């Protein structure tokens, strides 16, 4: 297990480094000149060159990249447009010349919204996804299964923005059943936080639960045919108890992996949901950065999102390994 954990961690680190390099190369290949964008409208070529120098953009790409990586680990000083030097603490993901703020700082400001959204959506997703999956699998082939499968398929097919607007209109504006979607820090007012996030949670959770429900159903169905489940039933365990104790355990692996992936992806920001409900999370921050061609912010946000994915996928793998004595004890 220890060796597995170690190898998995090293692998995750390697992926992260490669992701950072890819992101760096990809976005600095964009035609927009960050120096010109940062310098403002009235800069002549000389000034742009000066800005480019102060931003370090005149360095070879490789040097820029290694500086960047070093900054992530140790923090670094970055030249702003006007030549002043800003210290960017580790983990430094660069400096946004558009926002005049270290990217890390800007991202951290937006994280609470995204965390809240992800946490609630995951809860909805788990309850809904596992619930329908389990019931579907138990009632496999029957009317309930068909009904639930249809429900899930609609979830898998509906566009989140369409559902989001329709739900917002129906539940908030027309009837006032739910409060306006908004973010209040939970420390300030827990009820307002939960109320404001409820609709985004439900919508995002429902749409993403579809994949989860389908996977849990097929996993459970597959595991139900395992011989050890038959053995358990042969022991005299009831159907439900046998499935709860044995089937679910056997089906857990891929579900945990999917959950890890979903968690990582959601923490990277749900662009559409945040846009539809006007939540100022990491997703919207990134979308704005993309449209504002704020390259350092784009790279930082993409890296953060990738980090979450890699981290949680690796974590999920470790959990799966730990859950399985065949790996845990090897």
């Amino acid at each position, binding site marked *: 297990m220890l060796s597995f954990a170690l190898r998995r961690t090293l692998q995750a680190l390697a992926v992260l480094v490669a992701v950072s390099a890819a992101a760096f190369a990809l976005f600095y290949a964009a035609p*927009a000149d960050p120096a010109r964008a940062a*310098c403002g*409208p009235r800069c002549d070529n000389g000034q742009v060159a000066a800005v480019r120098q102060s931003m370090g953009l005149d360095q070879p790409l490789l040097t820029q990249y290694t500086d960047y990586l070093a900054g992530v680990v140790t923090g670094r000083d970055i030249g*702003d447009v006007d030549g002043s030097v800003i210290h960017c603490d580790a983990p430094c993901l660069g400096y946004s010349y558009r926002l005049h703020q270290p990217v890390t700082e800007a991202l951290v*400001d937006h994280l609470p919204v995204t965390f809240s959204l992800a946490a609630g959506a995951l809860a909805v997703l788990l309850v809904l996804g596992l619930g329908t999956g389990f019931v579907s699998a138990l009632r496999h082939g029957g009317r309930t299964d068909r009904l639930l499968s249809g429900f899930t398929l609609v979830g898998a097919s509906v566009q989140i923005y369409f559902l989001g607007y329709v739900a917002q209109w129906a539940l908030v*504006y027309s009837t006032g059943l739910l409060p306006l979607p908004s973010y209040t820090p939970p420390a300030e007012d827990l009820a307002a936080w939960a109320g404001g996030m409820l609709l985004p949670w439900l919508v995002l959770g429902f749409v993403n639960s579809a994949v989860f429900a389908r996977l849990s159903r097929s996993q459970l169905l597959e595991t139900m045919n395992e011989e050890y489940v038959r053995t358990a039933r042969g022991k005299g365990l009831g159907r439900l108890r046998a499935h709860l104790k044995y089937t679910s355990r056997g089906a857990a692996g891929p579900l945990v992996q999917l959950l890890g992936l979903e968690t990582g992806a959601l923490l990277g920001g749900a662009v559409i949901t945040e846009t539809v409900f006007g939540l100022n999370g990491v997703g919207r*921050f990134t979308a704005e950065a993309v449209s504002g061609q704020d390259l350092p912010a784009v790279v930082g946000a993409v890296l953060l999102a990738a980090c979450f994915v890699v981290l949680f996928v690796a974590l999920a793998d470790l959990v799966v390994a730990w859950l399985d004595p065949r790996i845990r004890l090897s």
Partner: protein
Amino acid sequence: MRWTKPSLAVVATALLASACSAGAGTGPATAGASAKDTSPLTAALGGEKESAGPAPAVPGARSGGTVNVYNSVEFRHLDPQKVYAGAAYNASLLWGRQLTQYQVVDGKAKLVGDLATDTGTSGDGGRTWTYRLKDGVAWEDGKPITAQDVKYGIERTFGKGYEVGPPYWPQWLTGEASYEAARTKYAGPQDGDLAAIETPDERTLVFHFPQPQADVPYMAAQSSSSPVRRDKDTGTDYDRQPFATGPYRIVEHVQNTRMVLERNPYWKAETDPIRSQYPDKFVFTYGKEALNSNQEILSGRDGGANATTASDVLSPELYQTADTDPKAKDLVVSGRQGAFVTQLVINNERVPDVEVRKALHLGYPRQQARQVQGGSRIGELATTLSSPALIDWEKYDLYPARPEGDPEAAKAALAKAKQAPASLTYGYKNTPDGQRVAQVLVDGFAKSGITIVPKPIDPKAFLDEVHRADSPYDLFEETSSVDWPTPSTLIPFSFDGRAGSDLNSARYRNPEVDKEIDRINQIGEPRAKAKELYALEKTVMKDVPVLPFAYPTVNQLRGSNVGGAFVHPIYGTVSLAWLYLKS
């Protein structure tokens, strides 16, 4: 107009902000505000009496409470010498003071002395301007504001990194035509003392200009003319938290997220003829989608009743509600967006035939173009180059055209042309709104026998593209504004044949006009100069170099508990410094 930036890549002119967010104006709509044919600006400059505090009381106002200010994006700059956008000018009145400022009573603006005792006295035919600071004006730590502080602030405008602000002080004080040239003479505070401004004592500033300058009182009202105390100048950080002189001070600022203002105890009402200090606090919340904050304000839930926006306008999604629901209608605050004018610019080099330009003018489906963007609420159709917001402005219409376009008249004009172009290229910002307007123009001009080839342009590259000397577009839309409410920064910059295409985007060349500009620039008296410039404007418009489209309107929302809300006639957003809470 969002306040992202005054985005014209222009050296001197006009705030010429191209509508950053969405073409001419997803903005504003007059919603009933009838077109006024005269300027709302009180022409006279205020004297010493008008410049004395306190500000005229807002009827019904009471003290206390917290006003919430929502906005989807944050002000781009807070450093007073970097601020260069109407909305930021307007909001910064809360914490910043300048030499002069506009006092607004009943929607009419009058320029009065702010830190200074009056709007300035000139001598030497406009080459010398003198200001005296009032007694009792102080920083947020109680120390008095000195002439040296004001001078230091103006010196900063020469510095590296301050290109984003207006270029006028450096140009005027050095007598150089370009900002770059001005900076070769003096490059900011680190170059030592700026000789062109004298500070004989702690209260007096004397500006010396190589050429006569008529517009100094207006420039003195710009944020660039705010004092900065040398020991509080934190460089880049000053852009985040400037040191306050106004009725409020910034106590907390999380970038792009939140900013909290509290009363500044050292601000004295009796020194300030412009601002009031009713609410206890202002809390700015950034990042919320405009539609959502608007909904919140309309519903009055979650603090929406005490809220307004800094510059987010009424979302198109809510037009219907605002029209049909009387309660909602009551919460809409509308007004002209400062001195902005939206025009369809013609590249006169590429379309040299005045008859073709006239045909375009006559065939222009203005009404459809406005309809597709929200109808009359986004602004009234324009006939002039200058905005009604300018001093002594009067309406004129040289070639009356039908708002929906007049294909017959256009065809007739086209027939007179020496050679009608096969097709015209229309460059537009590749946004949903831009795409739709392009469709309207293609469709509308086709009826007049004019083929429009629409070419989408990446929004970020739009201005660079259309202002490039060899730009391949015959037509494009531009929304721009003069820098202050006189015509001084209009014709002399944008229609001077000697100026580059970044300024003179219509590529208009008329030696007669150039000569007139040189003559008028020597006039040191503001109103006389304005009169001459209006006459010159009509000369220019005879050649139809651009097609005026609209004077854009701003519609913003205020919460039901917010009183004193109006759209600032000069800055074009809801004026925060006049707000109070009803209960």
